[in-house]
Each structure stands twice: as structure tokens, then as C-alpha cells.
């Protein structure tokens, strides 16, 4: 088993990056790796409730974030600085996640065996 940190950096809808990263996160968790997820930069926008990705021609992968705990992915970090930059409030997050300062993300990356950026 390895500890993997998967970082999402891209906004919803504009690219399929997060969707394919989420596929990898769930698959690796089901292969019994220790998986943590980090939302940073524009990717924090994935956490806003009430999105309709189908309207933008995308499969609704956003709602799949609610299933992370079923895959035993319990560490979900959200960059506080990115949230401030994009005007997001803590009570707007649609899934259970921990809002942390950038230093906590740095610490998580340093503790991981591998880091994958999507």
C-alpha cells in the first residue's frame, strides 16, 4: 500500500481533468491504497452545491464526490486561500471536507509516497 495524494487544480466543466482524476482516485482507493484528495486553485469550485454539469455537455461526475467516503477516502482538503480568492464560504461546500491553510497542503504532500496532479 502506498499513500497517494491526488490534487485537483482545474475548474469544473472547462476540462475533463478532474473527472479523470476522480476515476483514478476511486480506482486506487478500491485497490486499497491510502488516498487523500486536495482541491486547490479553481478546482474548489467543484464543491459548490447545485451544479448541473449535463447542461455543459459533461457527465455528472461532480455528484460522485459525495461518494468518496464509501471508498474510504476520508482526507479531503480544500485550500482556504483558493476559497477566499474565489469568494467561497465554508457553508457553501456540498461535501464534507476540511478547509486548510496552504501549509497543511504542503505537509500532506511531503508525507505522501506519490502525488498526482489533475
Amino acid at each position, binding site marked *: 500500500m*502506498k499513500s*497517494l495524494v491526488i490534487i485537483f487544480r482545474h475548474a469544473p466543466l472547462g476540462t475533463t481533468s478532474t473527472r479523470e482524476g476522480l476515476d483514478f482516485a476511486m480506482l486506487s482507493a478500491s*485497490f486499497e491504497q491510502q488516498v487523500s484528495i486536495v482541491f486547490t486553485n479553481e478546482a474548489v469550485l467543484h464543491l459548490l452545491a447545485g451544479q448541473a454539469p449535463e447542461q455543459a455537455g459533461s457527465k455528472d461526475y461532480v455528484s460522485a464526490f459525495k461518494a468518496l467516503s464509501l471508498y474510504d477516502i476520508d482526507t479531503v482538503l480544500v485550500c482556504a486561500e483558493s476559497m477566499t480568492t474565489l469568494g467561497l464560504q465554508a457553508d457553501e461546500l456540498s461535501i464534507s471536507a476540511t478547509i486548510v491553510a496552504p501549509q497543511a497542503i504542503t505537509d500532506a504532500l511531503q508525507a505522501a509516497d506519490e502525488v498526482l496532479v489533475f
Partner: protein
Amino acid sequence: MSKFIIQVNGSVYGSTASFRALSFCQSALANGHQIINVFFYQDGVTNSSALTCPASDEIDMHSNWQSLSLQYAIPLTNCVSAALRRGVLSPQDATENGKPQWNSSDAFTMGGLGELVVGIEHADRLISF
């Protein structure tokens, strides 16, 4: 000596990710390291298309990957679902899905994301491009 697994997410053309990945592989091998697999994900799967046909004065990444695989016996693995979504098919995929053509060359094999995860477990280090 380290064992690497390489992940290529960048397209065969329009991004330099694939070229940088290949250069990393060549340097690592030249320095005595081992590459256990090159895994193509996201737009990286387009590297396997045998129908890429750049002009003679351009870099032919598809052929470069084939040569690397042949010379050092390194498996090249496409994520099959990422590939199918992007119109990259093996002969078997084409038959199963009723498509008139296929484009992924023999040097690349279709596999699941599980092969990437297992590769990460076996390697000392994953390097993504």
C-alpha cells in the same frame, strides 16, 4: 538504481508533455535506472495512434515511443476507457464496438487504471507528465 513508472497525460501533439516524458525515460535508462511501464492516460492515449503522420521535419512521438519500447522491452499501456473516449481503438475494441477502423498500434496494449495503481505499488517512484 530506481524503478520508475511513467504516466503520460499530454497529447501526442500540442503539448510538450509527451516529449518531456520520453526524454526523461531516455535519461533514466542511460543512467542505469529501470522503467517498468509507461502508462498513457487522459490525452496521453493519443500517443498510441498509428495514424499520426507528422511531416518529415517534425518529431514523430508515436514512432519514438515504439522505438523506446522495442529497444528496452518497456511495456506501453493505454488506459482503455480514456482511449475509447478519444477515438483510440485497438483491433479488438473496434470489433467489439462495431467500428470500421482501429488506430492503436501493436506496441501499445490496452489496460485498466488498475495497472497504473499496481505499477505505482511496484515502482520506487511515479513520474507524471
